[in-house]
């Protein structure tokens, strides 16, 4: 397993996400260690790896929730951490729902829409909830929804402002089969409209079916990185298992 060189990681077209030697350390431990890649609009990077590999930290850096220790990243031409302008381009999905359980699904999505500058969000909120088949339960308080339904609302919240870049950390967490299908369809649709996606998942089949680029991350580094022409699911599964086993 040879780590890729930066020159092999460039996508075609003007990059919408670009990182160069991106590093984040917590004390003496480097959670993200010199990650370099670039994605063009419509690309999807699937990142696999064992627990603690640094996948979530990588997404948090790109979402502007963490500052890099060294290296650089840019999002839609804006260097990170790029303040409110860069954050307005990103939709963040996490295995944490990031919802307020006392508010209804509609109120949660509407609150997010207003934060993202959508002044009259009613139609957009309904569209977003409808895409995740949550319109019928839109007025139910989030605390009364099942875990899977909460995840659907969380995805609707992340998509309401039509982000240019979607950062998805274990987005299938808690979703049933129909929810997973709806999410996959949504992510495919977003790709076709030029949205770049970075998805962190342990589900190799789902991840590789969506991806134009794929990486296996271990101890903060990409130990394997491929574009769709070279993605071979079987050898990917083997690399992934090897990474998990060597960390276990």
């Amino acid at each position: 397993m040879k780590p890729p060189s930066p020159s092999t990681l460039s996508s075609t077209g003007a990059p919408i996400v670009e990182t160069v030697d991106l590093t984040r350390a917590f004390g003496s431990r480097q959670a993200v260690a010199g990650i370099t890649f670039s994605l063009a609009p419509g690309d999807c990077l699937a990142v696999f790896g064992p627990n603690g590999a640094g996948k979530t930290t990588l997404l948090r850096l790109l979402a502007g929730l963490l500052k890099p220790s060294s290296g650089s990243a840019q999002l839609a031409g804006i260097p990170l951490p790029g303040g409110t302008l860069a954050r307005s381009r990103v939709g963040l999905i996490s295995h944490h729902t990031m919802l307020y359980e006392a508010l209804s699904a509609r109120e949660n999505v509407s609150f997010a829409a207003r934060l993202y500058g959508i002044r009259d969000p009613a139609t957009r909120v309904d569209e977003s909830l409808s895409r995740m088949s949550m319109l019928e339960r839109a007025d139910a308080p989030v605390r009364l929804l099942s875990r899977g339904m909460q995840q659907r609302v969380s995805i609707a919240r992340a998509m309401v402002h039509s982000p240019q870049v979607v950062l998805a950390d274990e987005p299938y967490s808690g979703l049933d089969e129909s929810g997973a299908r709806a999410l996959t369809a949504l992510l495919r649709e977003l790709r076709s409209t030029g949205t770049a996606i970075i998805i962190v998942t342990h589900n190799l089949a789902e991840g590789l079916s969506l991806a134009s680029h794929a990486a296996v991350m271990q101890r903060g580094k990409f130990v394997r990185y491929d574009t769709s022409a070279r993605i071979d699911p079987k050898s990917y599964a083997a690399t992934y298992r090897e990474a998990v086993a060597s960390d276990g």
Partner: protein
Amino acid sequence: MGDTLFAAWLIARKDLAIEFRTRSAFFSAVVFALLGLVIFYYSWDPTAVAVTDLAPGVLWVVFTFSGLLGLHRSFGVETADHAIDGLLASPVSREAIFLGKAIANLIFVAAVQLVTIPALSLFYNLPLGQIAAPLIAIALLAAIGLVAVGTLFSAMAVNTRLAELLLPMLALPFFVPIVIAASQSTAKLLSGRPVAEAGAWLKLLLAFDIVFVAACTLIYPFTVED
């Protein structure tokens, strides 16, 4: 600036909607405040201490501790399922988040005061009608300072294991100037002195508010960057 204030109002409105639905912190704070008034009332010897000497201290001690209950909840609602990440990843400034939380807390503390001041008047047989306007001004000035400091420390304490203990430990020393100024100016009013005599204390409250609202708004972003 307009965007910051708009975002702050959205966040405050969301927090107030959550509190209105659950009412947990408000009822806890009101019950605490009323219990405090009752306990002080029954431990009071009217032949030894005049009511005008006792009431101001009781009022502001009760406000301070009941306010802490709401301040603790302020960032507590953001920790459930990492809602704070959604806020921090959104395109609103960190200052707007702080101001939004502070506005919601100010309305919360003012609502508690709205119940507590009439209750104080009732228990201690204090005619507050004639001093209502200056008393409201003191209450508002004290609440602004209390909320500015309390909101900042609530943000700092919320991710620690001992948040409920840490918040009062951090905030109470900073509340001391507010409690002294507010109780001293209230005492002047209750003893029938002209408002001008409380002027120095009111100026102190105003200065505290200006300094700490500005300082806490500027410091808050550093508490969420790591």
